[in-house]
């Protein structure tokens, strides 16, 4: 938002730090202060796969227009890492600012004329004021936040109250933090003209929005959906899902009378065991989930096939990261789409959910537990590092107290008790049963007195399950990954196997209209060109659509939220001549999924890709679409 040449509430700050030096909490203070001033803000951690000593960046976009994607061009660089300083210096856009620690002078080669250098002797100031070495290190970060408060007009009382909240219970730390903030304020007021032309001005643009990470939101979704068993193996960037689940569970899931836990969390020996536990718990009637990232999904492939074929509910949260093998484990990507969609051997496919915000992480994770039990098949929630580990401004989370957990088709003790009547017990294994005429009004009668785990009573491909221990003499069967008939009896009969696979396909068709609907950005289609995007490409895509519209390029837009694709998805694709598919991987995996599942003509699909490990930007989308439409 340009205002007399000032970039009020519209700029990008990048903090260049050394990891492990306490910069994260100081930098988060900046974001939170902007948020508290009612201005849209999006922070991104760009961090190394390392604990201490390597360069790490924290990039904050302030956007009055509410753009939440990354934007190219750094307006203000806070350069406190000597290792990365040459590049950091070069990355500042012309006309921007370079804030550095002037305790030592800048070497002569730092001689750009087109930027403004702001030297603050951070180390010297802290050495003079604090005696403890660790404090000297930590408060350097707070001093530059204080400096920003004067340089960019952060309201000082906002910072003061944030410090007060952060150190609630450790009040002794409040005073030195405030002192460090003031040191920064005083130094820049004395030495520089404040504020700069990039500055903040209080607004009321956020309403009741919250600042939250996708991983925490997924965890909370699992808590609200009634998940009781979480099994996991540590892997970046998914680890904080179970960390958050543990935190919320210890708060909201302890029996008030006995003090005992209404949940169980197991750190498994590997991802194979983690998903095995999830399958075991779901088989036994508890809602259970695991979270992992790409390599973990690879390890879980065998078990996902078992869950698919034996029809055991399973919730998997895949927080995607960059690359095959270990790739770039601390960078973001949407590159597990095909791996997840077709995980395992044989004919398998799995419903996927694509949340685009922390609010949707909460909702779709909760929905995943209903869907997996309704469909009796694994459901995979596809988030990524950007969504999972970064804080995002998002709508407040909402829970409808009248919502019941939909456990799907599970026969109770009473229902099994009523399963009397003529027994069809003389049927041999492999022999086709005669029922299943499609009427769903009286499912129990259609069993004809004999429970069959894989009978398609309702003609929707979804059979009725029983939980171990339910009834003394009815409903027991052996769950197995090998072929069996409608009564769960082992068989190698080809017709029976095919009948079962066809029923699983019927179930897949049922799933299509059961999944969350896509979001359409227009009432009626208005262009022959369309754009499709999902997950964390959404922010940048929305911005790019507006920028393109400003240039007269109109695009209809759809944001799918699930796989398999429903009819409205297909209609949208069919009614456009050219469809841009934005995704963050090299191989255009989502586009491939459309070609495989819908047979879409590849000639009409144009990929817009980003796969360097950083979140896609509006500029990248804009450039790729413009180049194609030229």
């Amino acid at each position, binding site marked *: 938002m340009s205002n007399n040449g000032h970039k009020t509430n519209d700029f990008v700050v990048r903090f260049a730090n050394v990891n492990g030096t306490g910069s994260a909490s100081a930098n988060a203070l900046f974001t939170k202060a902007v948020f508290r001033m009612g201005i849209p803000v999006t922070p991104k951690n760009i961090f190394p796969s390392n604990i201490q000593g390597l360069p790490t960046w924290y990039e904050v976009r302030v956007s009055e227009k509410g753009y939440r994607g990354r934007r190219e061009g750094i307006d203000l660089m806070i350069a406190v890492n000597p290792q990365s300083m040459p590049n950091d210096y070069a990355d500042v856009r012309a006309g921007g600012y370079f804030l550095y620690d002037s305790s030592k002078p800048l070497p002569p080669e730092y001689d750009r004329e087109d930027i403004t250098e702001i030297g603050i002797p951070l180390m010297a100031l802290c050495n003079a004021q604090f005696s403890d070495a660790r404090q000297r290190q930590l408060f350097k970060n707070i001093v530059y936040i204080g400096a920003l408060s004067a340089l960019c007009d952060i309201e000082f009382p906002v910072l003061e109250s944030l410090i007060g909240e952060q150190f609630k219970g450790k009040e002794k730390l409040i005073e030195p933090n405030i002192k460090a903030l003031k040191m920064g304020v005083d130094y820049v007021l004395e030495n520089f003209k404040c504020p700069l032309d990039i500055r903040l001005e209080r607004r009321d643009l956020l309403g009741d929005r919250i600042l939250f990470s996708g991983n925490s939101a997924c965890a909370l979704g699992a808590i609200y959906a*009634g998940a009781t068993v979480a099994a996991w193996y540590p892997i970046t960037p998914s680890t904080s899902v179970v960390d958050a689940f543990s935190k919320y569970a210890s708060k909201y899931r302890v029996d008030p009378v006995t003090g005992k836990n209404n949940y169980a969390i197991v750190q498994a020996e590997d991802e194979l065991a983690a998903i095995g536990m999830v399958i075991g718990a*779901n088989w036994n*009637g508890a809602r*259970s989930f695991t979270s992992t990232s790409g390599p973990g999904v690879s390890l879980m492939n065998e078990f996902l096939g078992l869950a698919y074929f034996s029809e055991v509910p399973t919730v998997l949260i895949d927080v995607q990261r960059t690359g095959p093998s270990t790739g770039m484990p601390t960078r973001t990507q949407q590159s597990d789409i095909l791996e997840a969609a077709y995980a395992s051997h044989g004919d398998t496919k799995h419903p996927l959910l694509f949340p685009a915000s922390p609010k949707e992480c909460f909702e779709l994770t909760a929905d995943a537990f209903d869907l997996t039990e309704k469909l009796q098949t694994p459901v995979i929630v596809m988030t990524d590092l950007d969504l999972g580990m970064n804080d995002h401004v998002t709508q407040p989370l909402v829970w409808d107290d009248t919502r019941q*957990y939909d456990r799907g088709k599970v026969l109770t003790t009473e229902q099994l008790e009523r399963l009397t009547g003529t027994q069809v017990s003389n049927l041999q294994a492999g022999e086709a049963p005669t029922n299943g005429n499609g009427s769903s009004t009286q499912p129990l009668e259609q069993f004809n007195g004999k429970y069959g785990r894989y009978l398609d009573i309702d003609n929707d491909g979804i059979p009725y399950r029983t939980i171990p221990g339910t009834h003394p003499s009815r409903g027991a069967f052996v769950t197995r990954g090998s072929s069996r008939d409608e009564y769960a*009896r082992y068989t190698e009969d080809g017709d029976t196997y095919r009948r079962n696979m066809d029923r699983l396909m019927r179930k897949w068709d049922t799933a299509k209209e059961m999944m969350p609907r896509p979001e359409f950005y227009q009432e009626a289609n208005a262009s022959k060109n369309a754009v499709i995007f999902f997950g964390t490409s959404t922010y940048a895509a929305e911005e790019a659509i507006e920028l393109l519209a400003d240039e007269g390029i109109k695009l209809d837009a759809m944001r799918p939220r699930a796989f398999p694709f429903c009819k409205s998805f297909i209609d949208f694709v069919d009614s456009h001549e050219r469809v841009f598919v934005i995704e963050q991987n090299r191989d255009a995996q989502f586009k491939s999924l459309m070609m495989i599942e819908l047979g879409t003509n590849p000639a009409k699909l144009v990929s817009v890709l980003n796969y360097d490990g950083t979140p896609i930007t509006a500029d990248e989308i804009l450039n790729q679409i413009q180049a194609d439409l030229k």
Partner: protein
Amino acid sequence: MTYVRPSFRHPALPKNALGYSVDHYEGTLSTLCAGCGHDSISAAIAQACFETNIEPHRVAKLSGIGCSSKTPAYFLSNSHGFNSVHGRMPSVATGANLANRDLIYFGVSGDGDTASIGMGQFVHVIRRNLNMVYLVMNNGCYGLTKGQDSATADAGSKNKSGSVNLFESIDLASLAIELGATFVAQSFSGDKTQLVPLIKAAMSHPGFAFVNVISPCVTFNNNPGSTKSYDYVRDHMETTAMMDFVPIAREIKAEYDEGTVEDIAMHDGSHIRLHKLEKDWDPLNRISAMNAVQNSRVKGEILTGLLYVDPDTSDLHDLIQTNERPLNTLTKAELCPGSDILTKINAGLR
């Protein structure tokens, strides 16, 4: 191919306290080779459940892949079973047990399923002291893929094709004791008198109960030169103790010589009564149990019976403090914090 078991049973079959005869504890007809040791073990499991008056639907049977892992279909047809994936039964059992601590978990595995592909999960389920019976039907070879040596085949033993196993064997009982298993027993599929009370005791143990049963493979590993053949095992079995399992609140009728009888009180009020045959062995002492097993290994013998037990143990649920009520019975009212709390959580994120 599934065979149909004849439905005729003698009307005068004895009944247990629940009014069930032993056939109520049987499963479908086995498809294993005639004379397979595994079938005797299945029968022993059924017998043990019959004798201890267990409601079959309160048992969950779990297995991995292999000949042994097919057996859950051959006992307790009124129990739910889960024939999972190769070497991964422990994780499925862990999840199932966490979901419902009130059932009895019976895991069946083989030497390939446990000592090779499933070693990681075997080790970790012991560490967690999951309350389950983990029974290995140990024949030293891969039956379903036609007789390759497994990791429990003894170095120097000869398989059917005549080739000699070059590699050291993994002794699962020693390993289980070493890792802290709280109930470790060893037996032979041909010795039902010993096996049935061991299984009964294992089921009443409140933590991880490991039962390693040597179960010769009649088709691929019952030849001279194999240390897992019927003849070899019969000739080299050394028993720790004669054993009775005494269920809760039954009178103990001892017929052993005085001074050699030891009663071990189990957590649920039942007793294991041992008539010791090995002098330097104390079933409550891990070190002497370990020594006894190692001593008989050196002699080429197989020490059978109850090797080690810690009756006062804490299982996984105790360790992680889960509710006494099974997690799978908790209702939405108990699990969902509700919208008021969500409003507060939202407020804390601004």
